[in-house]
């Protein structure tokens, strides 16, 4: 990635009285990418997006759009816009008037406005007859499309989304996620999306930024974040995970509580080694853990008792209590279902290429 970022944030700080919502956030947003900022509620992601569109003023830091400082530019002079969580449609206006609003503000002639609005309605699969329909007569999904069309009518450099899908039911949300991704490809615009839902982030984004307590924990592509999280927080936030406290040993190997480790030299080859005495968290995702038959071996082994089995549709999730009391989660596809009973003794194992080390101070 050699291209200059479209938006650059440099150590942005936001304080509300004595409370600091953002602790020096830096980020480069690339032209044309779909970046999703994910974090639990209260992590500061909504605060950040409000600063980025200019609805709030930052307390410290700088912010450039295509090399131009914009941190003191008010929202109405920034070439960016946002799709609100509430959608913020204008209730007193029809669908067409809502979509045309930014064009009307720019002084575009009525005829040209209408043409553009109908074009956008077409792009978003809204029937042309909706042009004169009242906003409050539209369904939730239709309102989403109107809000999107209105934002696109503004023709922003960057389009921000503040959890616009969170109020919709599951099926509609899934459909719109895919449509949004498709729209991103078709318009070629830079999308910055905010959500607390990891699934939403994984489906749509090129890159994901994980936010926690007003800071970015990790910014990377979805696969990287899923497979190689930099912290326990990210690992746990990105779905079910098994973590073991381990420590580097004199022989260059690893020692851990509750887990038998049969690796030595090759640890560094796979990036899971630890210097002597350093602590870390050994991570493995549930789908990489196997049930071993007696005599079978693996790089990492845990012995325990099968406690529960949950059907998750296409997958089955197993809960195993290890000998030292830690709980482990294992997931299998339905076709690879494990034929054990609750209370059975089981041996779990996984290989080094599926393991990841989170180094801790």
């Amino acid at each position: 990635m050699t291209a200059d970022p479209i938006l650059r944030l440099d150590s942005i700080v936001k304080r509300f009285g004595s409370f600091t919502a953002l602790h020096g956030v830096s980020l480069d947003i690339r032209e044309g990418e779909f970046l999703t900022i994910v974090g639990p509620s209260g992590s500061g992601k909504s605060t950040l997006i409000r600063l980025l569109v200019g609805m709030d003023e930052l307390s410290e830091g700088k912010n450039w759009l295509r090399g131009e400082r914009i941190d003191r530019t008010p929202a109405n002079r920034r070439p960016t816009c946002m799709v609100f969580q509430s959608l913020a449609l204008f209730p007193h206006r029809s669908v067409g008037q809502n979509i045309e609003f930014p064009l009307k503000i720019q002084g575009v002639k009525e005829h040209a406005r209408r043409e553009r609005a109908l074009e956008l309605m077409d792009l978003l699969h809204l029937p042309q007859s909706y042009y004169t329909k009242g906003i409050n007569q539209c369904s939730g999904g239709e309102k989403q499309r109107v809000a999107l069309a209105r934002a696109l009518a503004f023709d922003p450099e960057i389009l921000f989304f503040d959890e616009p899908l969170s109020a919709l039911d599951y099926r509609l949300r899934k459909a719109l996620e895919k449509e949004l991704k498709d729209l991103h490809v078709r318009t070629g615009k830079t999308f910055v999306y905010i959500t607390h839902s990891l699934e939403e982030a994984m489906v749509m984004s090129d890159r994901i930024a994980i936010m926690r307590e007003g800071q970015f924990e990790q910014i990377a592509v979805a696969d990287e974040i899923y497979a190689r999280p930099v912290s326990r927080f990210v690992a746990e936030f990105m779905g079910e995970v098994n973590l073991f406290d381990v420590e580097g040993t004199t022989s260059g190997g690893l020692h851990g509580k509750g887990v038998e480790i049969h690796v030595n030299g090759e640890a560094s080859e796979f990036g899971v080694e630890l210097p002597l005495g350093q602590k870390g968290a050994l991570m493995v995702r549930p789908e990489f853990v196997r049930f071993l038959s007696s005599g079978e071996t693996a790089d990492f082994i845990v012995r325990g008792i099968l406690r529960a089995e949950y059907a998750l549709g296409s997958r089955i999730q197993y809960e195993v209590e290890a000998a030292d009391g830690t709980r482990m989660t294992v997931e299998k596809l339905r076709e690879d279902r494990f034929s054990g009973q609750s209370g059975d003794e089981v041996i779990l194992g996984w290989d080094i290429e599926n393991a990841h080390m989170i180094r801790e101070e």
Partner: protein
Amino acid sequence: MESANRRLGTFCAIPLLAVLAVSFVAPLTVVAAFSVMPQKVFNLANVPDFSAYAELVRQGYWKSLAWSLGMAFASTIILAVICWPLAYGMSKVFGRFTLVITIAVVMTLFVSENIRLFGWVLTLMKGGLIEGHLRAWTGQGIDGLLYNVPVIVFGLVYVYFPFMLFPLAQGIAMVPDDARQAAADLGASRMQILREIELPLAAPGIVVGSLLSFVLAAGALAESKLLGGQAVIVIADEVETAFTYGQDWPLGSALSMTLILIIGGLSIFGITRVDLDAIMGRKR
């Protein structure tokens, strides 16, 4: 179920309808009937003619009507303009301080209108609070500030201030914050937001406030009498005179009917333009 509810609703409304019919419709009907009687009669057993209305035109009573409506119009516009920022602050900015303003404004209503207007007379009259101090300090007096049309309008603005302020604040409260923010985000300037978003969405409040102050101001009497002296005669004054000194009930009725028709027409026009349910709290 629906129709049963409807029938129950009609049934429950009967007592109120009866009260309204007796206290509101009946007197109006009497006034309407008197207005078409020949002049200076005191009962309704006469052949109707429209001489009272003819008298109304001939004697130039329309001037009083025009003054009343004109001053009511002026005071309504002034009220809307000066109340907007305060109402905006009350519903969007001040937070708990709004209660203080509400109480302060409502408290003025505890004192009779006439007494408050006399307060202004004492303040504005020659040798009063303002002119008296000015003369004592500078040795140079000015003419009294009373007895002209602007001071009557000032009185109307002062007295009907709460009737504009509260509906307006209610109307502005109905403008969603996110709609304003979205408009700004989409490039709208402060003025464009006012014109495109705030005024249309606050319209029910503006209409209710304007109607209340206009209707009250058009029928107002005390302001023109106390502050305006005899600078202009307002329509309410003419009605009173016709019924009392003039002893001409049909003329008084004709004047009343004219005022009622004009104000009623304006009110109906205004009310049908906006969604009153919105401000009355029913969900859209």
